[in-house]
């Protein structure tokens, strides 16, 4: 078979003759991937998320070399890594700091999508893969948190696995299946270790590849929410507002990386516990199955959802049922198909009965689990909930932007109260927060169409540097 005809010289030419796809993919994804030239601050976090993933995988490999996934040795082995493994403290602090930074970076990355409508057509697949990555990340964080085998590791896992026992009929058996025992034990530690170091990371890396492939098929969105592929240069056929990712965005992202690493390593070297938020103080006490800590809270990045879980108490069910009834009526009048109208009313009636209907009602704990799950999964529905004529907040009514900020505030307040011990005030604030959280999403099909929209320009806003 003759060699592939190549335009490259030297080693590159040699490779290209034998594996043409190497240079084809390089051009497709880097040197000839045209990205809008008006990316701003918010566009650093995608590539930074990949950097944090790389940090987590690399440090994780080295931690695995020294960690002992055995309930008798796990806690000690982590502390031996910190003391006896040369540079072990550095590897471990990078990994523990990286876990929190992964969530910081991903939350900012998601905020960018809400700001500029990055999930809208044609980027629904990009968004769905992104949401699945977020789910994997949560799984990865949850399984990984058991491994240091401290009090918070142990009791946090106990609380979360117990949630599954709220599921009717199969619940109790399901939670035993997850733990591999009747309580969190060595068996649980071993299977969580397997999930943390191989199962979830494999899926995660695959999803990241799919996320980027889907993105590069449709092209990146930008702060103006304009499709740059609609205005091509007649001579070259390239987008007029696009520039090759390499070298322009590679040098740009390296600059962003420098700033990010300064922040990241400030934490790693000078405040690895981050005031008890990145490494919880209680987790320096070895796991003790016989002693429940007075206050169990998940790590900060889970606390908004944890607040929603705790908010769902018996008296709150009435408010939830009322909210659902109002929403069903709203849908009834909004939907055109008669079948859909009555299907919505019927479904809402069934759910309301299951919520408050005397003997038929399900445990509020189960509804808490359902709401917690829904609060994460609802992000997937964003491309269909958002009906705004303009993608970017720049061309939407100003109050849309403030509504988004309000949502962020609700998210942070829920997060703060999730770290605090339960109290009547905590419960009430979490309940109000839960209602506002879901209202933001569920009423979006209406509010995203309301107000005065500004005309969207045909070319991106960009001032040369």
């Amino acid at each position: 078979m003759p060699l592939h005809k190549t335009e490259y010289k030297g080693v590159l030419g040699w490779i290209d003759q034998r594996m043409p796809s190497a240079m084809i993919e390089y051009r497709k994804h880097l040197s000839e991937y045209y990205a809008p030239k008006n990316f701003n601050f918010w566009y650093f976090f995608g590539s930074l998320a990949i950097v944090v993933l790389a940090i987590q995988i690399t440090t994780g490999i080295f931690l695995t070399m020294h960690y002992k996934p055995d309930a008798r040795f796990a806690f000690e082995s982590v502390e031996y890594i910190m003391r006896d493994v040369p540079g072990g403290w550095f590897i471990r602090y990078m990994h523990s700091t990286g876990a929190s930074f992964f969530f910081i970076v991903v939350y900012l990355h998601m905020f960018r999508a809400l700001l500029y409508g990055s999930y809208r057509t044609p980027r629904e697949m990009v968004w769905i893969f992104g949401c699945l990555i977020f789910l994997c990340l949560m799984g990865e964080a949850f399984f990984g948190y058991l491994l240091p085998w401290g009090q918070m590791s142990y009791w946090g896992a106990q609380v979360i696995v117990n949630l599954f026992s709220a599921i009717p009929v199969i619940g109790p058996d399901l939670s035993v299946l997850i733990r591999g025992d009747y309580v969190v034990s060595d068996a649980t530690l071993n299977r969580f270790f397997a999930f943390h170091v191989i199962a979830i990371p494999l899926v995660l890396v695959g999803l990241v590849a799919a996320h980027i492939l889907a993105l590069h098929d449709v092209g990146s969105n930008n702060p103006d929410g304009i499709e740059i592929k609609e205005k091509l240069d007649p001579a070259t056929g390239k987008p007029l507002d696009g520039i090759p990712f390499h070298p322009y965005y590679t040098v740009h992202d390296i600059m962003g990386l420098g700033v990010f690493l300064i922040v990241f390593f400030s934490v790693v070297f000078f405040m690895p516990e981050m005031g008890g938020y990145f490494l919880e103080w209680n987790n320096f006490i070895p796991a003790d199955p016989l002693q429940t800590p007075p206050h169990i809270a998940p790590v900060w990045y889970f606390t908004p959802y944890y607040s929603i879980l705790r908010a769902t108490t018996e008296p709150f069910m009435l408010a939830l049922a009322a909210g659902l009834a109002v929403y069903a009526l709203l849908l009834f009048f909004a939907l055109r198909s008669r079948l859909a109208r009555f299907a919505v009313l019927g479904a809402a009636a069934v759910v309301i009965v299951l919520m408050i209907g005397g003997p038929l009602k399900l445990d509020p704990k189960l509804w808490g689990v359902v709401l917690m799950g829904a609060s994460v999964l609802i992000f997937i529905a964003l491309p269909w909930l958002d009906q705004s004529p303009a993608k970017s907040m720049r061309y939407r009514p100003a109050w849309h932007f403030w509504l988004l900020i309000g949502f962020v505030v609700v998210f942070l307040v829920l997060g703060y109260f999730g770290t605090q011990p339960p109290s009547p005030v905590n419960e009430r604030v979490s309940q109000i927060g839960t209602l506002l959280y879901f209202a933001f999403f569920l009423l979006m099909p209406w509010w995203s169409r309301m107000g005065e929209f500004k005309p969207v320009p045909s070319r991106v806003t960009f001032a040369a540097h």
Partner: protein
Amino acid sequence: MKRLIASLCLIAGTLLGGAAHAAGAQVHLDTWPEARGRDLASLQNGARTFVNYCMGCHSASLMRWNRLNAIGLDDRQIRDFLIFGEQKVGDPMTIAMRPADAKAWFGKMPPDMSVIARARTSFDFKGTDYLYTLLRGYYRDATSPTGWNNVAYPNIGMPHILWERQGPREATIERIVHDAGGKGMVREVAVYDAAGRATVTRTAVPGHAAEGASYSFKPADPALARQYDSDVADLVAFLTFMTDPSATTRVRIGVWVLLFLAFFTVVAWWLNREYWKDVK
């Protein structure tokens, strides 16, 4: 909007109320002098106290003896002055007491001290301040099983092992508590003499008063007690060192890493500017 204002008020109320509650539940903790943690002589003095007194019951099994190289002790010094038994310098700092015996004698195994300063920290106070107050907060109490009580940890199981180093003291514990019968508040002042006999006086507090406790000590030998405070500060420095023996190295390397990253970022910024000159 009303709901928003109401919830904001609730949040503000919780934050303020929470702070007041945390302050009421706990006695005031003395601040550990942090400079001791950076002083090698203090750390070595703390190590001496720890090995001589604490290691009767408390292990530090996550530490190897030769990790003490980091506080300026060489292997020979560690072997000659700190290791009492047959252990080698590469062995972990374990103790001879068996957990089963400890349980029979004390009710539970005295905890390992390797990471105690970190484990006792919370959002409300630092573990170092807690330990500094606890170890200086003992007073004689004839009603307790060990004859000792503690202001930072009421009815503590651990007796005052270092009592000779502190000398006898008279303690005044003042508590504002709910009246046992009525609805009012009572100020309860208990004066414990050096033998642990208490004289208690109760007076009703008019109006509203927050629950709380305060204490003061009158040492028989103030100079000895001052020396003891200093030794405890050194001991807490050593306990803090053990929680994260790499901390000093970490901060030293960290400065260089950040300097490099600052340089790297400047170069990256310049490179970015040069490339982006083409983009019109």
